[in-house]
């Protein structure tokens, strides 16, 4: 078969906020063919049917039985990552799993060994790695544009899971698993910090030491504020600051090197960028944002039989850093 005509048959498991974005992106991608979707919500499945998806499942295990499906995108609550990913690996499907890899390191190790055992590709959904500005920054750091980077700072502050959500004009409540420590595994650090830690690890390599502080302004069992200082083995001191406490959304990366400094504000987007993106979408010229690029890259890796990155191993390293941060924060709390 001619390479140009090859397509990857995809199944999407979980049609929450992220899952819907993945579905939309896949539908715009000529190399991807969405064969089926699975979700417990009837409304979500109806929405997929309206978008032309013929096979819809209320149980993802039924979707995994479909031999025509090559790979799955898993966008489920954290507590279902291990079970669903292991089942998908057993079914021989390549997997794009939304971050974080799992709720904790031991669960992450189970996922990884299962992917290895069944020989399937596993990629983690860290879309920041596909943001053009952050990719350029990676190349500039590697090429020595900043000299030697001594200090870096990454920030992601928003309402996190408490950002108002809705279906059309109908507001929706925050899913209950976000309030359950057992099900979510961690707070703002696991949710938002995992993105930043993965990014900084990509830029600077291996973390050799860590100090962390957590805040609990909303009286939950998980942190809603976290600040970590990471010491990189062959690199800078970097801080990661995250929070679920703000009505506003702010995301930035700053690097300071011996030759140059840079501050990159990623959010909120400029009015010009929002308008231009909306006009392009309205005209049918789909906006190739970082989440689109992420899936395109995953599909390309499958078509070319290459190992995708961020890999499961990277996801596990991120979890190890986060687990260490939780440990050090609880130790510092007792001082």
């Amino acid at each position, binding site marked *: 078969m001619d390479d140009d005509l090859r397509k990857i048959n995809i199944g999407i498991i979980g049609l929450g906020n992220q899952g819907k974005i993945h579905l939309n992106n896949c539908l715009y991608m000529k190399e991807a063919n969405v064969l089926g979707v699975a979700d417990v919500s009837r409304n979500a499945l109806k929405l997929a049917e309206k978008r032309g998806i013929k096979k819809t499942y209320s149980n993802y295990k039924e979707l995994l039985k479909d031999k025509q499906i090559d790979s799955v995108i898993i966008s489920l609550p954290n507590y279902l990552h291990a079970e669903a990913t292991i089942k998908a690996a057993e079914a021989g499907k390549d997997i794009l799993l939304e971050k974080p890899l799992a709720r904790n390191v031991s669960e992450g190790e189970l996922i990884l060994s299962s992917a290895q055992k069944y020989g399937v590709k596993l990629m983690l959904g860290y879309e920041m790695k596909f943001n053009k500005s952050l990719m350029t920054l990676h190349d500039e750091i590697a090429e020595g544009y900043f000299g030697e980077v001594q200090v870096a700072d990454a920030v992601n502050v928003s*309402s996190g899971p*408490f950002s*108002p*959500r*809705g279906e059309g*004009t*109908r*507001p*929706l*409540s*925050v899913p209950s698993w976000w*309030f359950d420590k057992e099900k979510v595994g961690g707070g703002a650090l696991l949710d938002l910090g995992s993105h930043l830690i993965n990014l900084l690890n990509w830029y600077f390599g291996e973390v050799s030491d860590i100090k962390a502080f957590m805040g609990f*302004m*909303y*009286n*939950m069992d998980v942190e809603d504020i976290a600040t970590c200082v990471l010491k990189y083995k062959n690199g800078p001191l970097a801080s990661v600051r995250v929070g679920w*406490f703000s*009505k506003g959304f702010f995301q930035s990366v700053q690097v300071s090197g011996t030759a140059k400094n840079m501050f990159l504000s990623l959010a909120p987007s400029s009015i010009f960028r929002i308008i231009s993106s*909306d006009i392009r*979408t*309205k005209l049918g010229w789909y906006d190739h944002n970082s989440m689109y690029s992420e899936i395109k890259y995953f599909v390309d890796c499958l078509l070319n039989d290459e190992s995708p990155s961020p890999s499961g191993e990277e996801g596990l390293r991120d979890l190890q850093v986060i687990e260490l941060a939780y440990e050090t924060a609880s130790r510092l709390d007792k001082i």
Partner: protein
Amino acid sequence: MSLVSFVLVNNQEKDSMKEAIVRSLDLINFDFTRNIHRILIKPNMCYYYHPSTGEVTDPQFVSAIVDIFQERFNDPEISIVEADASAMKCKYAFSMLGYDRIVKEIGIKLINLCKEESTEISINIKGSKFDILIPNIFNKSDLIVNVPKIKYMDGVKISCALKNMFGCNANPGKYIYHKELNDIIVNINKHIKTNLVITDGLMVCGKYTKRLNMVMSSKDPVANDAAASRLMGLNPRSVKHIASASKNGVGNMEFNPVGDFNDFITKFPKRGARDDIRKLAASLYSRIFY
């Protein structure tokens, strides 16, 4: 004309809040000698926002009110009430905003109105039928205290005392009422009569969030909201639910301000004509693109 008082809170300490609240109640001649046993306090808990955003009532402010009632009335039974909404669930909001902790400290009750017995009332608005659930607990109370925030709100222009009572409807799917929100607000206020409004104006949501350190009190929710609109630079007659509430006998739109009204009127972060144009442009834009 109904009295509406405006008092400055000197600092963020609870004692200062109590002092300012007592002064604001004295200015409207609130009678503490009445025989009051059951008190219901309805704060604004519209979503999981922090009180410093100006969106929700500060639990510390509510705690100060509870202290005053416990000191002035003879062994009152006080409950803080709120109902689930489409996006906000009391179970989580009570704990996240710190009400769980407060009730433990001061020995009062927290009530999710959706779990209380209610009476269904059908309302006909422009040919459409709406059912609202009025919790029976309101009929069994001696004093209903409305503790709203003061903020601009799309669709109804302002949110203060009258809008806060919209949250007492025990139907959690409140989004269905948004099409006729002004009329629904008036109807709920006709069925649940606020006896006392104590507005938490510590942080306000105006053109931007601002620490105003204000307490505003009134025995009349319509007068209270009319005064709030003036503070926000709006003519109360242009706010549909205030004008309609006045017409329907919920209260009196004419008010007599007492205390530091003129100070706060200059300090409130008002929206101007430019903001309205910007808002209109944004609304047209979202209709075209979303």
